């Protein structure tokens, strides 16, 4: 239980700026996700908080105490590494015990802490194994137990699930959420997988090119992106980004906010040809070629054999997001209304099939 404040932290590796004046407050007992594409600086930020890297400038505060120069071992944080970093020559039990021994925790107490941690990740029958004799999921649990046993205030996790197969990842997501609710600690979790971010995080920080793009609840990040990067990053597939040469505005529409109709209704609609379709079960993602570019549409699966068919794509007018020429979201209602009128005009100009808005 601890909150972390990052103040003006910058970091460069040989003239390449990895973090550019980061300011961030990680709430006490939150499950905060640092989300972004690879190379966005999220792992470096995590390592700075752990004390494994020193920032070029700026401060790391923990409960309002300056931790910037404190050694990693004295920060009361535990870290789970992407490759687990389990000591390969030590058994599961010895791996979990290692940190306590270094801290000279005496034996009845030490055994109890280790046993508790092992029980928590359900590895009771594996304690005598070496890491090499275990599966990826089991190794992941050992790494978690090694963090848990220290009873830290902050858990730092660096893409801990990325080495697991898809099925195991689903299981571990549940287990991590479960652990989070049991441990009452602050979790800071780095990932590039938005499903992990959306399903586990209470708070998501989206980073790109060393800058925080947006932070907020998973709902806010998904429904109300601040800029084109976030709109084009979040979602599977992400929002359609529509920008037109000669105009200052860009627009984004989520695939699920478009409906395919064979007859028109209260939407702005545009005709297009289905280029490809991806059936997901109940839903399907259609890639549709239109006069304003290729867009993907997520909709209840039509199942019929409609490939290459001409369809009408109806875009919900109130779901269109407008951004200015610097890529920032237009918040001003009047400006927004104007931008939308531009959008309509473009579609009118481009589409001879346009049915217009009712």
């Amino acid at each position, binding site marked *: 239980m601890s909150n972390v404040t990052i103040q003006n932290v910058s970091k460069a590796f040989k003239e390449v700026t990895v973090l550019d004046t980061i300011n961030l407050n990680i709430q006490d007992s939150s499950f905060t996700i640092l989300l972004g594409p690879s190379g966005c600086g999220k792992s470096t930020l995590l390592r700075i908080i*752990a*004390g494994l890297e020193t920032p070029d400038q700026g401060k790391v505060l923990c409960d309002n105490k300056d931790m910037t120069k404190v050694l990693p071992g*004295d920060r009361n944080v535990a870290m789970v590494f992407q490759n687990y970093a389990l*000591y*390969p020559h030590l058994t599961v039990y010895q791996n979990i015990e*290692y940190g306590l021994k270094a801290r000279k925790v005496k034996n009845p107490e030490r055994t109890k802490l280790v046993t508790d941690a092992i029980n928590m990740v359900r590895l009771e029958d594996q304690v005598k194994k070496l890491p*090499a004799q275990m599966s990826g999921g089991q190794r992941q649990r050992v790494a978690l137990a090694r963090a848990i046993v220290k009873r830290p205030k902050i858990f730092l996790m660096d893409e801990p699930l990325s080495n697991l197969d898809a099925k195991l990842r689903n299981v571990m997501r549940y287990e991590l959420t479960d652990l989070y609710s049991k441990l009452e600690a602050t979790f800071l979790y780095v990932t590039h997988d938005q499903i992990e971010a959306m399903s586990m995080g209470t708070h998501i920080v989206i980073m790109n090119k060393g800058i925080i793009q947006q932070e907020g609840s998973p709902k806010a990040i998904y429904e109300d992106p601040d800029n084109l990067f976030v709109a084009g990053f979040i979602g599977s597939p992400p929002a359609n980004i529509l920008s037109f040469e000669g105009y200052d505005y860009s627009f984004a529409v989520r695939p699920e906010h478009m409906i395919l109709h064979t007859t028109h209704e209260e939407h702005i609609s545009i005709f297009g040809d289905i280029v490809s379709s991806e059936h997901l079960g109940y839903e399907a993602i259609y890639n549709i070629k239109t006069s304003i570019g290729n867009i993907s549409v997520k909709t209840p699966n039509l199942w019929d054999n409609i490939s290459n068919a001409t369809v009408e794509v109806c875009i919900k007018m109130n779901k269109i997001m407008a951004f200015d020429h610097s890529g920032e979201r237009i918040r001003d209602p009047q400006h927004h209304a104007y931008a939308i009128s531009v959008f309509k005009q473009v579609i009118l100009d481009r589409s001879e099939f346009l049915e217009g808005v009712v």
Partner: protein
Amino acid sequence: MFLSKFQNIKIKDFIRTLNPLWFMLPALFLMGLWTYWPLIKTVFYSFMEWNMLPSSTPEMVGFENYLRLFDHPDFGKALVNTLWYIIGMLPFAVIIPLILAIVTENMNTKAKNIYRTLFFLPMIMPPVTVAIIWRWLFHPSVGVINQALMGLGLIDQGINFLGSEPTALFSILLIAGWKMIGFSTLMFSAALTGVDKSYYEAADLDRTSKLRQTLTITLPLISPMVIYMIMLSILFTAQWTFVYINVLTLGGPASATTNVYYLMYVYGIKNFNAGMGSAAAILFFVLFGIIAIMINQINKRFAFYDN
């Protein structure tokens, strides 16, 4: 008819099992020519008396050579000296390089490269040149070492390092060891490079001291290399010291610096006694073979291999 067909299949199968041998043939031929044939010849000559002159013929003498070897006054001395060389070489081949490799491992790339190049330089110098340079350094009256010691007032007159009883062996050891440090440091550095850095980060987060990290993480993870270097050192010290004995002391004074390798050379090459030389060679072959097998067993039990 049935039987002949059956036999045919058997012969075909047999020829097929021989197939891999054809690919190995060039290597087998060279190994046979340069390793196994000489080995067999050595065993053969160890039971012969022969002065290596083309005009004379080897004469069967049974175990005579071996018995004479055990009675020879230099033989015991050479065995004891070899043991001292082996013990004395371990700090140079294992302990000092291990410390140097670990200390330089965490330096920045530039400093690391400069240091490791310096350590490695003696290794690439020709042994005979090295021997001659050290002879100058060790010179009883004008050598730099004696000059320095006298200058500091530690001694009144020059020490005859290579000519007196305990110092000669130590001097040979120092030269051979000095030359080995670079090689071992390089080997340990290579092993250290293979250790995943995240183990140390995990240990840092566990508030583990650098010394404790070295003892509980580094050493176990490079144990195969440590044991390998110990084995190399034990088995080859006699060879590594040979050049310096041959150039600087010729085994003297009074057999104080001779070792089994040099003894073999004296019997076989200097005295033209093929029988004695071969008998000594076979004895040491068996002796070092046993040591090698023992160390291999130790290796299997104690070394940890990270995959």
